[in-house]
């Protein structure tokens, strides 16, 4: 069948093979069961020193097999700028992911962490990429510096965007989490932990750059990215605030954009001005996030507000989500309300030529993610380290926007103010 389905099958296979891989590695430890502990001296030779358990390479992982079905034939659910618009319905592309994580300690203070992840990219490929690759060093017991590749830390739940087992939902609400789709930050960060009484505070400054390929070709690039996160935890409550500033470049080189550019250049002397608002390397953006979580074991409440201001190439927008979840034994039903609102479109310039303006409007609308939605779902922890999730989402696209959907026929898309239902089911594991 098609490429995405094959990729999903490959991922599933990996998912079932990975525990075996881990067992093979774990089996090399001399003392992971009473029996091997007793046999270890014979295997290793009586004179061999007992290896320090703490310094050994450890491997573990996480995976999600997820599918999402859209109730309308002419649109596809996507995680904007994260995955490729699927050709299939239901689609395994948006939520299926597998990650393999390894770490090794380099003495008492330093550690090396490597993680590879495979998920559908904006180009439709499941090629694994390095999602973490850093050396950490504990400067003091409460200050750690990390150098290399870390997860982009823009959101409250950035660290678990791909680790769905750690979240109540199938995926973090797209209204909020599509507002800044970058994955990895190549650079340096500091984790400073402090506390007063029963209150734990983490201060997290970072600096680096990030690159993201975009659908049909081209890439977006954050550079000179600097930011600061502060999170405060007291008992069941966690508060989060983060702010980041970055230079920003966005280069479209896909066929649709090249066709649009050629058409604009042919009909208007203003083409360079219009295109300069859509694509180039002279952008600057700021992003802020405020969030709160309450988790007392029975109730899980999550709220987050995010805001993006950008000089060029992407719209200004803000988004929020509120989730209420309640645990009943192994079931955790949840309700999420979310909204993404555009504050300023990418561009409003038109040419006066109807056909070209239609194309321009379609392009600008596809860059607008405004929608609101309600999600009702449940998580079921039916087996150790395994959760099944089932959710229904009702989204209403706001104005000239595509929301978190992609029109199969972009030029003839009728997306304005539509309501679209999706159903998702997924299984998350950690191993």
């Amino acid at each position, binding site marked *: 069948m098609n490429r995405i389905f094959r990729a999903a099958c490959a991922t599933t296979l990996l998912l079932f093979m990975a525990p075996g891989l881990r067992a093979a590695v774990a089996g090399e430890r001399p*003392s*992971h*069961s*009473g029996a091997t*502990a007793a046999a270890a001296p014979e295997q290793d030779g009586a004179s061999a020193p*007992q290896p*320090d*358990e*703490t310094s050994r390479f450890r491997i*573990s992982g*996480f995976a999600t097999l997820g*599918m999402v*079905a859209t109730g309308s*034939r002419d649109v596809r659910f996507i995680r904007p700028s994260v995955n490729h618009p699927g050709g299939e319905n*239901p689609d395994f592309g948006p939520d299926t992911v597998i990650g393999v*994580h390894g*770490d090794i*300690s380099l003495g008492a*203070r330093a*550690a090396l*962490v490597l993680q590879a992840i495979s998920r559908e990219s904006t180009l439709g490929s499941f090629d694994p990429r390095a999602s*973490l690759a*850093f050396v*950490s060093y*504990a400067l*003091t*017991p*409460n200050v750690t510096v*990390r150098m290399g590749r*870390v*997860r982009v830390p823009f959101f409250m739940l950035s*660290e*678990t965007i791909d*680790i769905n*087992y*750690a*979240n109540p939902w199938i995926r973090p609400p797209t209204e909020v989490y599509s507002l800044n789709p970058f994955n990895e930050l190549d650079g340096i960060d500091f*984790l400073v*932990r402090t506390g007063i009484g*029963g209150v*734990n505070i983490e201060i997290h400054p970072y600096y680096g750059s990030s690159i993201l390929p975009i659908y049909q070709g081209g890439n977006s690039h954050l550079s000179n990215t600097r930011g600061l996160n502060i999170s405060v*935890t007291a008992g069941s409550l966690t508060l989060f605030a983060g702010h980041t500033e970055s230079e920003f470049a966005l280069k479209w080189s896909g066929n649709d954009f090249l066709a649009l550019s050629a058409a604009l250049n042919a009909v208007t002397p203003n083409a360079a001005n219009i295109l300069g608002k859509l694509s180039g390397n002279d952008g600057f953006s700021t992003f802020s996030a405020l969030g709160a979580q309450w*988790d007392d*074991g029975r109730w899980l409440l999550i709220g987050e507000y995010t805001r993006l201001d950008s000089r060029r190439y992407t719209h200004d927008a803000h988004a929020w989500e509120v989730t209420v979840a309640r*645990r009943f*034994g*192994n079931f*955790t039903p949840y309700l999420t309300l979310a909204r993404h609102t555009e504050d300023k479109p990418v561009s409003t310039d038109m040419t006066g030529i109807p056909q070209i303006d239609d194309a321009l409007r379609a392009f600008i609308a596809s860059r607008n993610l405004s929608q609101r939605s309600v999600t009702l779902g449940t998580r*079921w*922890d*039916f087996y*150790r*380290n*395994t959760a*099944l999730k*089932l959710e229904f989402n009702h989204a209403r696209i706001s104005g000239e926007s595509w929301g978190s959907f992609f029109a199969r026929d972009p030029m003839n898309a009728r997306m304005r103010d539509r309501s679209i239902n999706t*159903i998702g*089911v997924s*299984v998350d594991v*950690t191993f």
Partner: protein
Amino acid sequence: MHNTLGAFVFSVLALMTTAPLAGPPETQGKARPAEVVIVTSGGIKVLSREEAAQLFLGQRTTLRDGTPVTLIDLPAGPARNHFYRELTGKNPVQVRANWSRLVFSGRVRPPLEAGSQSEALELLARTPNAIGYLPANASDNRLKILLNLSGS
């Protein structure tokens, strides 16, 4: 739409019918397990309850004086669940979700999971600066009791 719905219903049914074969997770201990003690092989002199909770929640990886600590977990089961509930107030699903976030973001290493209670005892006795937990009656004279969780 019909095919989509059919595929969806089939998937859900398939998942639901395979689930019971896998068995329920160990979220609810039925009988109250034995009292639990936090133990070390020596070297570590004192451990406050707050420090212990922070260690087993991954909020810190060293003692106050900077000594790095190796945590030893019992295998998944009622004794481990009881320990985490007593010390941190968190249920097994919360504990695993919390550790999966911390581990896969590369912030901390997870506790070493022993294959059995007796292996946990061996690991604790042999590993420098190890901290673990055992039912009170399972500890032996190689280990020092740092905290007793029976009081709560």
